[in-house]
């Protein structure tokens, strides 16, 4: 699979990355080579193989729905880059 400069820019947008212009061609080349290598997976006969998205899929895990005391804003917001009272501050989200 050959990845183009445009592909990298599109995927970067999906990933919420702003890849430096000088890196786009380098990434296109490196990711192309990685995907070319990964393409060998297509040679594997997977008929009958189950999807294994986790390492321990034997059973699901449930717990009782018991309320816990939340840690509170002082702990939750302790690392906030910007806050006002008990709220995170972010730049404008709606134009």
């Amino acid at each position, binding site marked *: 699979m050959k990845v183009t400069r445009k592909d990298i820019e599109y995927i*970067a947008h999906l990933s919420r990355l702003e890849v430096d212009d000088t890196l786009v061609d380098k990434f296109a080349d490196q990711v192309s080579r990685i995907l070319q290598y990964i393409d060998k997976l297509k040679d*594997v006969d997977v008929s009958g193989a189950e999807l294994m998205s986790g*390492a321990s899929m034997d059973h699901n895990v449930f717990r009782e729905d018991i309320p816990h005391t939340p840690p509170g804003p002082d702990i939750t917001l302790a690392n906030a880059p910007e806050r006002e009272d008990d709220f995170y501050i972010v730049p404008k989200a709606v134009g």
Partner: protein
Amino acid sequence: MEFHELTISDARKLLDTKEISSVDLVTALLKRIDACDADIKAFITVDEKGAIDGAKKADERLAAGESTPLLGIPLALKDLLCTRGLATTCASKILENFVPQYDATVVTKIKDAGAVILGKTNLDEFAMGSSTENSGFHITRNPWHLDHVPGGSSGGSAAAVAARMCTASLGTDTGGSIRQPASHCGVVGIKPTYGRVSRFGLVSYASSLDQIGPITRDVRDSAIMLNALCGHDPRDTTSANVDVPDFTTALAQYQADGLKGMTAGIPKEFLSVKGLDPDVEKAFHDAVKLLETLGVEVKEISLPHTDYAVAAYYVIAPSEASSNLARFDGVRFGYRDTNATELIDMYKKTKSKGFGDEVQRRIITGTYALSAGYYDAYYGQATKVRSLIREDFSRAFASCDIIVSPVAPTPAFKIGENVDDPLTMYLTDIFTLSTNMAGLPGISVPCGHSKTGLPIGFQMMASRFDEMALVRGAYGLEQALDLKKRFPEMSDSL
């Protein structure tokens, strides 16, 4: 013997007989860090005050007559494990100033056990790498040869143990990140079975593959550390609710019976891997012969999908990473770019300035593999191949107790040798990442040196939750080999 040379079990005896105090031990190691770490650069943060305070508390518990295996023992932690009040950077600029408000479960466990935390060790940013060259702060050097990498991603943890700057350390292993640096630095590293050790408070890279484990001077210390780390944790839903044996009994079992009755399989596919270094191959075969003299029956086995493991891994791990790392968006913690005036722009600028190249490359690869039109061909196919890899291991373990192999195709490589070629770097994980894919435990134990004097590790893998077999087998090999040169010679000035 100098205090910094002590293993956990050596130090335990001296602490319990009051020949030394925890403060003595911690002070000696802090002095050692001061002397060596300017060259090795294994640590990101050294917590001198916290360590001395911790040692004083441990000495009080010792004075009160308490004796538990880790009481007063100084440890270093990979900087991917959350420590309350102590910076946890993941070796990323995006978390340069992040101070967790809670401890990871393993940190709680070792603190409760009385261990003293010396500091946080360097890694490839967010554990993405095999050389510790991808750290956002600085590279770590191999204590055996300063112009070589220590391996990765837990390179700081392995180098710190090898250079005797901590008694033992914790690492994490997603595709070999405990075992490969342990091998490259000549120390012992265990990746436990997926679910054995709680991942709560471990900053996730690839959640279905990550596991925390110890890096130690010898196999006995690894067994002691495993005892402290393992156990069910309701805060990690993938944590296994299974009994935890006393892993040190495997040492006694070896002393009583040697390795009689044990069967080891050698995967034929592993030894036909391209680029297997002749010194590694020789050290591996010599160790296998030694295992046979200890009573191990050795047989050839097959893991037919080995050739596809690296490809499947480098779809699954980046896919999970692309999801896990979405949280570092500059809103709740970590770095934020302050130039952006709109939200999406802030996310983009924050991530691209905060993450290094390898992290961005993996996010892009993962996002690509998960994107519409490619999901089935990449992620779907890789997860199916993963289940075939797991079935390969299940079949193999029907006829053997352990599977043995080299840890890495070559000894530690030179700094800078592979940095511009990510794919070549990825291929060095060939022997280790299958166990992560199958959720199995693995150990790296030193088995010799290359002609140039670099350490070489020997890997043993076992069935799920059979770390006992690894401890017994690795202890047998370690005792029988009795390597004369276990640690790098380092002058006091280094």
